[in-house]
């Protein structure tokens, strides 16, 4: 909401707080000022000037040559490029040596052979608007040579106020004035307009219970009094459409609005002053009947912005006897728009259901000053004031006669009952005691009517402009706290009872996994869970892009994209891990699993002068997974790849105690990643954190008291047989004396028959209560060899 500081001053006589103080106060009352714009400052050098004569530039078709009176006593020659400049027109003018906003210096220049001694300015050049409609023509009796900002009341400040959705009352100067006035001790007033027209206020011609009313030959009928609870229609005849006087146009420019014509500007002015949207129809194009109803299927409307709108059946329209003439509460229609030849008006001041307006605004994607107020809620008690105010303003600036009565259709909105504010509740929520007498003193300046209900509570009547957001006791508690000032509450830390919620165990597990990963030299990545269709099963209804149209089913593909990104940045040693969520379809909402994923490529260690760094290989990945597996209580086994990005012959599965697969990893298939030619192999893994590992403490075990005996066996093992199977056979045959078996060498080549390999195992034997004899150990080894021969045909080498 744009607020003019001068406008506020007009509503709050005697306000002498600086614009900055006003902005600070609004911020501390919940309506921060995003921007405080000094409108006059950059325009200090702009003067009011009159074009004495405009003629064609002899050397350029699109330029004109103007004789300009800028009040300096001498005539100036100005070359101008805008088509709308005319003899006798009054315009803002910057003489040579002056500056435009943005510190653009105006120099003496020769344009196609003729000297230009200054510049006639457009609204855009002055920072007052965006339109390119040529030089800004000024209206009314303005002193030539005077400072522009004073003459058009732009020695002003614009406050860009950030209004929260609960405070529609702040979408008006009066609403903001109430907040500032409450603090400054000034009651807002509506000032008289310059040369204000005087006439008796029109009577309200109340209609019947069904929602019909008529006055001055115009009848109003409401088909749905829920969607439109009240509609005031006032006829004004014999107006003269023309430009607004500069005081009115200046006010609108100060808040960034473009002046259009006196009547339209008047409705716009009152909207920004009081917050009540208003609309003026050309009565002669409207007919004598106004119906507020839902649009009929297939109906359309060309709105003021020249757009042809197709209306849906739930949209509320203003119609005449045959057709819609306006989108209720949003925008008028082009047909019945006020135009230069308009003589007679119907002024609408209505109340619409916020939900209905919101639905139509969304449906048409059309937000206007009117719609943004109606959908948040307009003061139902302020309608008559707004209608009177706009009638006075129209007659003041456009002449005409106001009808003696206005049609007043619809039941209106009834006032909510008073709210009780208890001392006990106030103290309980705030934690500090504000006596009810103080609360009452804080509430009243905002328009609340307060009386004592008993000695422990107040009865509070809410003013119409706060019906939207003050509905219950807690809302009054906030009002009291807000007016008291949040900074005025103490902030000493007191005691508290310990929480009944245990620290989340899955987060604790993730902490441990993060420590393991970081300790192993990996960098944590965080990626968004969005994925293209190929990588996700849960679709977003309105995705931002095709690449982000799903929620991911797994983490590794996204992580591989991050590896690719790092390749493009020239990084070759990449070690990423991520703890994140994956989504599966089939349930509502979709099922989620937390997962750990990792992706590695590059050298095993940072480069070192002592020798070339070796590339990471499958065994680095397996070792890393073994560490993670032990943290999670999982087992690693070679297995069928469960993920399409894995190379089938180089993949592992992680399996839990029950045999359930909880993860997979291995070498990434070349086709699954877009890698540059210099890249080294990429390895990746993904683990599901589905169940929390057993964290029970393990007990002390006696350390061995007797020495171990070791025996090395070199075995010729067929290639088809896994070492794990051989070790299984060894373990089974050796019995309880075998403490450990560990492969310590693998050899293929000379002396080893084709199709076999030499696998060297170190066997460690120990007994708990005595030293083993060589004979005992040799006996076990013989048994082992015999079993290997019988089961697998494995022989001891050489």
């Amino acid at each position, binding site marked *: 909401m744009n607020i003019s500081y001068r406008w506020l001053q007009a509503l709050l006589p005697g306000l002498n707080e600086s614009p900055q103080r006003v902005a600070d106060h609004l911020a501390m009352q919940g309506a921060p000022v995003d921007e405080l714009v000094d409108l006059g400052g950059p325009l200090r050098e702009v003067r009011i000037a009159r074009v004495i004569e405009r003629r064609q530039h002899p050397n350029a078709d699109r330029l004109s040559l103007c004789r300009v009176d800028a009040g300096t006593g001498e005539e100036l020659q100005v070359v101008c490029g805008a088509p709308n400049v005319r003899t006798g027109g009054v315009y803002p003018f910057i003489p040579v040596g002056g500056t435009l906003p943005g510190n653009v210096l105006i120099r003496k220049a020769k344009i196609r052979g003729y000297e230009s001694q200054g510049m006639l300015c457009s609204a855009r050049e002055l920072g007052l608007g965006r339109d390119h409609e040529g030089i800004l023509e000024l209206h009314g009796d303005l002193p030539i040579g005077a400072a522009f900002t004073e003459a058009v009341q732009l020695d002003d400040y614009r406050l860009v106020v950030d209004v929260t959705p609960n405070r529609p009352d702040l979408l008006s100067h009066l609403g903001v004035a109430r907040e500032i006035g409450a603090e400054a001790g000034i009651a807002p007033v509506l000032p008289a307009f310059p040369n204000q027209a005087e006439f008796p206020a029109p009577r309200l011609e109340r209609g019947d219970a069904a929602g019909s009313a008529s006055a001055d030959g115009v009848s109003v009928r409401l088909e749905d009094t829920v969607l439109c609870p009240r509609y005031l229609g006032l006829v004004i005849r014999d107006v003269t459409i023309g430009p607004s006087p500069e005081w009115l146009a200046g006010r609108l420019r100060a808040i960034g609005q473009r002046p259009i014509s006196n009547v339209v500007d008047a409705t716009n002015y009152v909207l920004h002053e009081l917050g009540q949207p208003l609309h003026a129809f050309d009565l002669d194009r409207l007919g004598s009947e106004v119906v507020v109803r839902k649009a009929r299927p297939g109906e359309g409307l060309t709105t003021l912005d020249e757009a042809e709108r197709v209306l849906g059946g739930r949209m509320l329209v203003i119609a005449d006897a045959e057709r819609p003439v306006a989108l209720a509460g949003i925008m008028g229609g082009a047909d019945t728009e006020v135009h230069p030849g308009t003589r007679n008006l119907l002024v609408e001041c209505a109340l619409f259901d916020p939900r209905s307006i919101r639905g139509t605004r969304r449906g048409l994607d059309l937000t206007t000053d009117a719609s943004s107020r109606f959908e948040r809620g307009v003061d139902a008690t302020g309608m008559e004031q707004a209608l009177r105010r706009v009638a006075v303003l129209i007659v003041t600036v456009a002449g005409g006669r106001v009808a003696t009565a206005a049609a007043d259709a619809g039941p209106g909105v009834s006032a909510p009952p008073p709210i009780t504010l208890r001392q006990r509740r106030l103290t309980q929520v705030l934690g500090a005691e504000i006596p009810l007498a103080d609360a009452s003193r804080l509430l009243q300046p905002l328009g609340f009517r307060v009386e004592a209900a008993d000695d422990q509570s107040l009865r509070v009547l809410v003013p119409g402009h706060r019906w939207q957001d003050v509905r219950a006791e807690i809302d009054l508690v906030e009002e009291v706290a807000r007016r008291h000032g949040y900074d005025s509450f103490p*902030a000493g830390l007191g005691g508290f009872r310990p929480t009944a919620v245990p620290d989340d165990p899955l987060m604790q597990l993730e902490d441990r996994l993060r420590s393991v990963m970081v300790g192993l030299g990996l960098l944590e990545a965080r990626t968004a869970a969005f994925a293209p269709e190929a990588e996700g099963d849960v679709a977003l209804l309105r995705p931002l892009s095709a690449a982000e149209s799903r929620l991911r089913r797994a983490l590794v593909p996204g992580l591989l994209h991050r590896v690719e990104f790092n390749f493009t940045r020239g990084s070759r040693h990449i070690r990423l891990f991520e703890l994140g969520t994956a989504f599966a379809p089939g349930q509502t909402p*979709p099922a989620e699993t937390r997962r750990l994923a990792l992706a590695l490529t590059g050298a095993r260690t940072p480069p070192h002068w002592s020798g070339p760094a070796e590339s990471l290989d499958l065994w680095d990945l397996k070792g890393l997974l073994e560490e993670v597996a032990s943290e999670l209580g999982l087992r690693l086994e070679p297995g069928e790849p469960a993920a399409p990005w894995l190379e089938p012959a180089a993949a592992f599965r992680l399996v839990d105690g029950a045999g359930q697969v909880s993860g997979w990893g291995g070498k990434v298939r070349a086709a699954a990643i877009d890698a540059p030619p210099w890249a080294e192999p990429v390895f990746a893994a993904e683990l599901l954190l589905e169940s929390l590992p057993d964290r029970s403490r393990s007990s002390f075990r006696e350390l061995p008291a007797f020495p171990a005996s070791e025996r090395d066996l070199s075995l010729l093992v067929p290639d088809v047989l896994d070492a794990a199977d051989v070790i299984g056979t060894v373990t089974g045959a050796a019995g309880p004396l075998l403490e450990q078996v560990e492969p310590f060498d693998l050899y293929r080549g000379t002396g080893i028959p084709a199709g076999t390999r030499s696998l060297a195992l170190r066997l460690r034997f120990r007994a708990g209560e005595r030293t083993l004899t060589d004979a005992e150990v040799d006996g076990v080894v013989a048994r082992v060899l015999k079993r290997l021969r019988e089961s697998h045909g494995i022989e001891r080498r050489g």
Partner: protein
Amino acid sequence: MDLRQELEALQRAAEQAIAGAGTPDALEAVRIGLLGRKEGRLTEIMRGLGKLPADERPAAGAAANRSKECITALLDARASVLAGGGAAVARVDLSMPGRRRWRGARHPVTLVVDEICAVLAGLGFTRARGPEAETDWYNFTALNTPLDHPAADMHDTFYLAPGVLPRRHTAPVQMRVTQQIQPPIRIVAPGTVYRRDPFDASHAPAFEQLEGLAVDEGIGFVDLKATLTEFARQLFGSGTRVRFRPSFFPFTEPSAEMDVSCVLCGGGGCSACKQTGWMEIMGAGMVHPAVFTNAGYDPERYTGFAFGMGAARIAMILYGFPDIRLLYENDVRLLEQLVRP
């Protein structure tokens, strides 16, 4: 002079003589002088051991043997130096870099989340978790945000199906926890939230938020102020100034916005704080009674406060990232920059 002193003196003399021997011949002469069979000085000392009393003999013998080993080693080392011509033996250049391992690091957002949770742990808060895909009841309705309320009219909400959405904020965790557990409650819920905002310098379609909630009998707005002020001082530094401004959230009332004095300029005004001296850090407020009713709590008995903040935003402030996208590119060069012990 007793035997021990005699041995020490001999060893010092030997070290000097060995180091001073410049040729193999000179070294041989030194060797004969010390260990020679006839007149070597150590040989003589060892010969004399036999005259000592029997109870002193073992200790003295051991000491003499240690001296002999030591001198022999020195002679051998010097001999090898002389034999190699001296200069050819490589001196180890200890200025060369050691053999390093890759260093891992937590993501900057994790660093901030962990830091925030650690500060809040000190203030009695434990961590809680909730699902990322939620129903609109948990995300809006239960939090006193009717779906047709202007506050729920958020173009920036993604949907998965009618009524189902990747959560717009972490506030649903409040409801998830309070439905299950009776007060006292003090929790902080970090997690990912989703907004229909394309990536730009200050927006991301998915980012991390932290939601805090404290509920018990007797918790008032002053406790909110005290707790969050203490939190801000611990996170941003003890000199941090804090201010609370009224604001609006459907699920809290009174609602507040907390600003801290600018972390960069200290409050004097700079480009990071848009010359205001303040930085907006979090939204907070007293839990709305309607939210308690939806949780099954008696709002006349229990009161509490809730607060929420963006971890990525705080990471940008604390680490000086100019652009939120840098946090989600996962460029390893950047991730390695922020290694913290």
